[in-house]
């Protein structure tokens, strides 16, 4: 095989490990890749297997993956420490249309582990690399103990209108409560000319959050979602992530809602 075999992973060194919650952790690996926020890697451990994991942040020579230990691979990855190797191939997929977000009023709604794929996007805005007119963030978690990226949330608050909400009131929690949809309802839009909306989270959350924006008359073309599906290749070959004529691994995971709304699994 003359060209580089796209199925062969590369070893990358783990240089950081941060426990986010009881079952979620962020690994930083040393790797230089050109990444668009929203893209993912096929992450693997020989003997265990491979799974698609979205990039939860990146720099010129490092990549972060925020992982929930809920499967065979992710449970095994949980045992790794700085100095160990992780095996990756990618980046894959179509990320967020960064250029279309430039100088727009950007609204990002993310729920639970869906915060991970939008984090590099928010980070670009907060660092000033992606200039926008305004940034509204609605970030929802199930409860206090499932809040991810606490440090980032503080930094984001300084550069955006941030609503951090947990599903139900909890003792010791003085912040916002309720599902993200309840906070979307409070938003008001008089025009949509320079508006871009991003919604990422569990399937049910995305379904109802996008519906709320539609009720607010936000045009479908101005809403972006990111899908999560089982994938074995990331290359448009294995067939697992196909919905209608769309392959989530290559046409997505970030899709415009005008396209995504018509997709039925």
């Amino acid at each position, binding site marked *: *095989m003359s*060209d580089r*075999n*796209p*199925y*062969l*992973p590369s*070893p990358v060194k783990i240089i950081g490990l941060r426990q986010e919650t009881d079952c979620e952790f962020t690994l930083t690996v040393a790797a230089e890749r050109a990444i668009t926020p929203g893209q993912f890697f096929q992450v*693997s451990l*020989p*003997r*265990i*297997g*491979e*799974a698609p994991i979205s990039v939860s942040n990146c720099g010129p020579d490092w990549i972060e993956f925020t992982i*929930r230990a*809920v*499967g*065979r*691979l*992710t449970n095994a990855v949980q045992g790794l420490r700085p100095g160990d*190797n992780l095996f990756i191939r990618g980046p894959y997929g179509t990320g967020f249309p960064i250029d279309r977000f430039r100088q727009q009023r950007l609204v990002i709604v993310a729920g639970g582990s869906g915060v991970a794929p939008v984090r590099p996007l928010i980070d670009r805005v907060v660092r000033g690399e992606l200039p926008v007119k305004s940034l509204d963030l609605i970030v929802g978690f199930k409860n206090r103990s499932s809040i991810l990226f606490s440090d980032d949330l503080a930094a984001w608050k300084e550069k955006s209108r941030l609503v951090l909400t947990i599903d139900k009131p909890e003792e010791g929690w003085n912040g916002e409560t309720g599902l993200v949809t309840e906070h979307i309802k409070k938003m008001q839009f008089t025009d949509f000319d320079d508006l871009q909306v991003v919604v990422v989270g*569990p*399937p049910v959350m995305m379904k109802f959050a996008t519906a709320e924006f539609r009720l607010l008359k936000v045009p479908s073309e101005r809403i972006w979602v990111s899908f*999560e*599906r*089982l994938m*074995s*290749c990331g*290359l*448009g*070959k*294995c*067939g*697992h992530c*196909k919905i*209608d*004529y769309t*392959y989530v*691994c*290559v046409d997505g995971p970030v899709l415009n809602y005008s396209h995504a709304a*018509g997709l*039925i*699994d």
Partner: protein
Amino acid sequence: MSESFRLSAEQFAQLFEQLSTAYLLAGPKRIAGAGRFSGTDLVRYAFLKSADELELHEKSWFSPKELVFPPDETLFYFNGQQFTEATLPDDHEIIVFLRPCDINGIDRLDRMFLENAGVVDPYYKRRRERLHYFMIECRESFENCFCVSMQANRTSDYEVALRFEENSVQVEVCGQKFVDLFARAGEKAEFKPEFVSENPVRVELPTEETMPPEIFNDKFWDEYDSRCIACGRCNTSCVTCSCFTTTDLFYGDSRQCGERRRVWDGCHLDGFCDMAGGHTFRKDKGERMRFKTFHKIYDFRKRFGVDMCVGCGRCDDVCPEYISFSNCINKLSAKLKGGL
């Protein structure tokens, strides 16, 4: 440019032997006693030792796709932290005897493995490049065939086309590679292959460019909830089903060493849509039937401009629950026509 020849059965047998010295020859082969019921045979694609092993009177249970996309295939070996790409055990070229529907079927696989997303699958490509098509002329349908409706009954993509007669074989040879061999083996003739032009089973394809959303959840599919048992035979026997999953295995005496394989998977099988954390899509068998049906006759066309299904009818041949895919297509079209 093509030339045609007639060979006696003996001449063809000799030529087959001669070809065997330079090529592997694959074709439908009868395997005695290996059938679905006791005392029945299995016809499947296999490498052939002689011309008389070529089974021409019965449709093969499995398709020739195994030659380009085996049921399981090692992608690479790992040894601690290092990977070694799996090589093919040999680099023999393969002559495969196959019918027009299967040639069209492999064309559909080409679109997935060589074209989709602009990525060439190297494992498929290296197997695909070894194939030489010797097309078995197919003038009459087998049971359940509906290739004509799927416009997959004809092809010009072959190097040799063969008509097997009582005591002779007529061939059309295209291109230079095999002309001399056939010219030496037989005498010149006037022969062009014919193609089946009518099947007893016909399907009417839906004409919708975009399926109405209601049909996705229509009760129409519920019948398959109880009927389909998710055995995946329709997927494994289909020449165009190309889904796979990857799995790692390690060797018992050294847990650092092992290999990553890809293995056939199918949209009718349990677990096909399972994600980590317990979420899944298409739990019901009817939803899986809808997904497969639309892929085969609707959304593949949207992506590649041609229908995926080639109408070989193997899915109907092998279904233990007697689900008929051609019936399903016809019922779907009638349903869409009749209004939802």
